[in-house]
């Protein structure tokens, strides 16, 4: 949009109007002055006329006095006076004629001149001595002269009055002119003042309105409504400003939209993202990170990250943090320098990868593995039991049957042949050996007593056999076993005991060993202690090691139990196994 009428233009137009008005006022003043000047000039002329007429009047009125004096004293000197006075009067009339404007009737003065001529001639007659006029004749001449002058005077008076009237009319015109011009100027002045006030009011209103509108929009923007817009205020600079402002808002909106876009991306990320400043305080944080740290953005921004995690030693570190809700969260996180435009380190960017699901799956897999291992062990034990039972109840029974057959043969053949009898006896003893072997194999596979009567009889039997077979003194004690426990637990504990006993026999050089079983409400504890040479439970790396303990540990772990080894060189060995039941 183009500015049609800017504020400057408006001001220029307004000023022009004001200027015109001022010119008008000046013009009217000037006209007034002109009028005044003209009238005053005319008045001066009139006053001059008046003065001359007065002079004429005086001169005319003085003419008859020498004649009168002559009449009285007959002095010829008076004639000179008379003559000079007449000529003076004539001069005055001439002067007056020179001054008198055309508006007056000049005939009066011409008549006056004629009259003066007549008076002059009458005077000549009067003063002529050689005529010897009689007094009454002289008087009558004088009367005629006086009458003439009187008539002249009357005419002059008329002329004077006329002039005076003219002067008055001029004064009146003057007054009228002054009045009119005053009114005009005052009116113009008032109009101008009004216009200026009105114009300024309009301008100020416009500016105020526009700025108010802009201010309102700016307030809206600061309050976060970025999508607002200034309505087109006017077609002036404010309009331009509004358009520019709208354009700016649009630009901001576009930029902001892209920021929102990035925010949306960051907040939709699977990984947590945190930016900390140089002092280690959280500057910004995305929603996943908030979720991981277990608090709201408002509360997390500004708090120290060291509350949750420490800067890692490696680029990627796996940890388990305890968040604000007290929940442990396993995660993989990285620390990276945040470099600003000037290439300076402005803080750190931390990316946290949530491992909860992974760990859950891992633990599920682990559980499945354990279950599988248990199932395999179970199957193995079952198979062993089956073979042991088959041996015992099948082959051994059959062999026993063979024994009976041999015995009956013995009875039948006893008298026949000494040699045959000896052979039968030998056969019988071989069958007995076979039976014993079968029993041994069966027992080694699994003691049927364990299956039949449970852990305690089986273990006490095992200890008895050990004491019978070996020099090491084995002791077995059980605590709290009133009933049999789960068959799987029985088997696994029996196997662990077998393994421990084997270890003791092979490595310990012990003279005494104690096997103890303790039944708690929710678990069974097996303690195997010997007074042998012991071993270092930790290698140089600090990890636990054991002689043949790995498979045992695996077995225990699969059943959700804990195996602890307490041993040191020449200090015996103490195995504690706790299994849940």
């Amino acid at each position, binding site marked *: 949009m183009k500015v049609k009428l800017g504020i400057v233009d408006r001001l220029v137009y307004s000023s022009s109007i004001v200027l015109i008005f001022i010119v008008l006022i000046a013009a009217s003043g000037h006209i007034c002055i002109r009028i005044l000047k003209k009238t005053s000039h005319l008045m001066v002329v009139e006053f001059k006329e008046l003065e001359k007429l007065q002079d004429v009047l005086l001169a005319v009125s003085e003419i008859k006095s020498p004649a009168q004096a002559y009449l009285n004293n007959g002095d010829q000197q008076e004639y000179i006076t008379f003559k000079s006075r007449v000529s003076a009067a004539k001069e005055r009339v001439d002067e007056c004629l020179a001054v008198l404007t055309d508006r007056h009737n000049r005939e009066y003065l011409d008549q006056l001149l004629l009259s003066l001529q007549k008076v002059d001639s009458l005077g000549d007659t009067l003063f002529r001595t050689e005529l010897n006029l009689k007094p009454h004749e002289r008087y009558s001449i004088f009367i005629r002269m006086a009458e003439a002058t009187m008539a002249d005077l009357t005419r002059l008076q008329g002329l004077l009055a006329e002039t005076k009237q003219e002067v008055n009319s001029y004064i009146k015109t003057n007054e009228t002119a002054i009045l009119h011009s005053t009114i005009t100027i005052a009116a113009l002045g008032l109009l101008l003042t009004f216009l200026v006030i009105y114009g300024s009011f309009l301008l100020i209103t416009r500016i105020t309105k526009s700025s108010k509108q802009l201010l309102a929009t700016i307030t809206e923007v600061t309050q976060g409504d970025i999508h607002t817009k200034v309505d087109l205020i006017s077609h002036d600079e404010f309009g331009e400003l509004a358009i520019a402002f709208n354009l700016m808002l649009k630009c901001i909106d576009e930029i902001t939209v892209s920021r929102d876009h990035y925010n949306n991306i960051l907040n939709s990320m699977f990984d947590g993202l945190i930016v900390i400043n140089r002092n280690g305080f959280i500057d910004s944080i995305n929603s996943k990170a908030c979720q991981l740290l277990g608090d709201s953005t408002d509360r997390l921004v500004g708090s120290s990250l060291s509350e949750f995690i420490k800067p890692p030693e490696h680029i990627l570190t796996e940890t388990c943090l305890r968040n604000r809700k007290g929940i442990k969260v396993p995660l993989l996180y990285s620390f990276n320098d945040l470099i600003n435009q000037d290439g300076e380190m402005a803080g750190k960017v931390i990316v946290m990868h949530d491992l909860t699901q992974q760990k859950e799956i891992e633990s599920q897999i682990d559980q499945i593995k354990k279950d599988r291992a248990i199932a395999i062990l179970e199957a193995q034990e079952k198979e062993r039991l089956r073979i042991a039972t088959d041996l015992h109840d099948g082959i051994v*029974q059959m062999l026993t049957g063979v024994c009976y057959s041999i015995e009956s043969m013995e009875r039948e053949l006893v008298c026949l042949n000494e040699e045959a009898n000896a052979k039968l006896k030998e056969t019988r003893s071989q069958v007995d050996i076979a039976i014993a072997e079968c029993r041994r194999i069966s027992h080694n596979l699994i003691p049927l007593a364990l299956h039949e009567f449970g852990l305690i009889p089986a273990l006490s039997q095992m200890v008895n056999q050990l004491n019978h077979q070996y020099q090491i003194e084995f002791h077995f004690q059980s605590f709290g076993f009133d009933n049999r426990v789960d068959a799987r637990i029985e088997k696994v504990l029996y196997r662990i005991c077998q393994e421990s006993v084997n270890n003791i026999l092979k490595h310990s050089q012990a003279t005494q060993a104690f096997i103890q079983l303790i039944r708690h409400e929710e678990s069974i504890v097996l303690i195997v202690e010997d007074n042998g040479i012991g071993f270092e439970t930790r290698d140089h790396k600090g990890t636990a090691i054991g002689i043949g303990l790995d498979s045992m540990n695996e077995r225990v772990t699969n059943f959700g139990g804990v195996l602890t080894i307490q041993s040191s060189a020449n200090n015996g060995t103490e195995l504690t196994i706790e299994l849940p039941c």
Partner: protein
Amino acid sequence: MNKIRILIADDHVLILKGIQSTLQLVDNLEIIGEATNGVEAVEKALFLKPDILLIDITMPRLSGIEACRQITSQNREIKVIALSQHEDEAYVYQIIKAGASGYLLKNSTREELVTAIKTVLSGEKYFSPQVSDRLINDLFSKKDREQSSVEQDVHLTQRELQIIRMIAEDLTNQEISERLSISLRTTETHRRNIMLKLKVNSVVALVRYAFKHDLINPDTH
């Protein structure tokens, strides 16, 4: 003189016939019946009232041990001799507990069988030589234990003694764990084990026990 009336119970026909043929030629013996499972054995024993019942331990429907218990509890006159393939003394104990008077391995000779029957009829017990050896071993080891005092009988491990001393020093589980570099859970397990083994319910009782048995002073150990 009346013949000795014998009832045989075994699920293996081969064995059944074998024993029959073995005992047939012996004077004064009369086999009055056979049973091939536990239930039948009980029924026939109670009905026929034999002098001697030769019973297999592993039988279908009802084990020899259970059948023996039922028979002897109802008729004390019937002498029961277990005829078993098991050398394990656990079986011996179980069937003796159930009221049997003798224990024979199946591959015993006829002479042994006859001896057993006669011994049992005279009111004594009879065990196969292989079995009696084991029983004597067990007896000796039990005797060993009885020689020591009843309370000392409970063996405490080195670790348990350490922990008892620390408990007596009024250390918490946490402190004990730290001192022994073991997990808190392990300490708690040890502690529970000790309490259960010594049949004490409180730390006071435990400490009292420890003082009584001079467990506190490490010099004595």
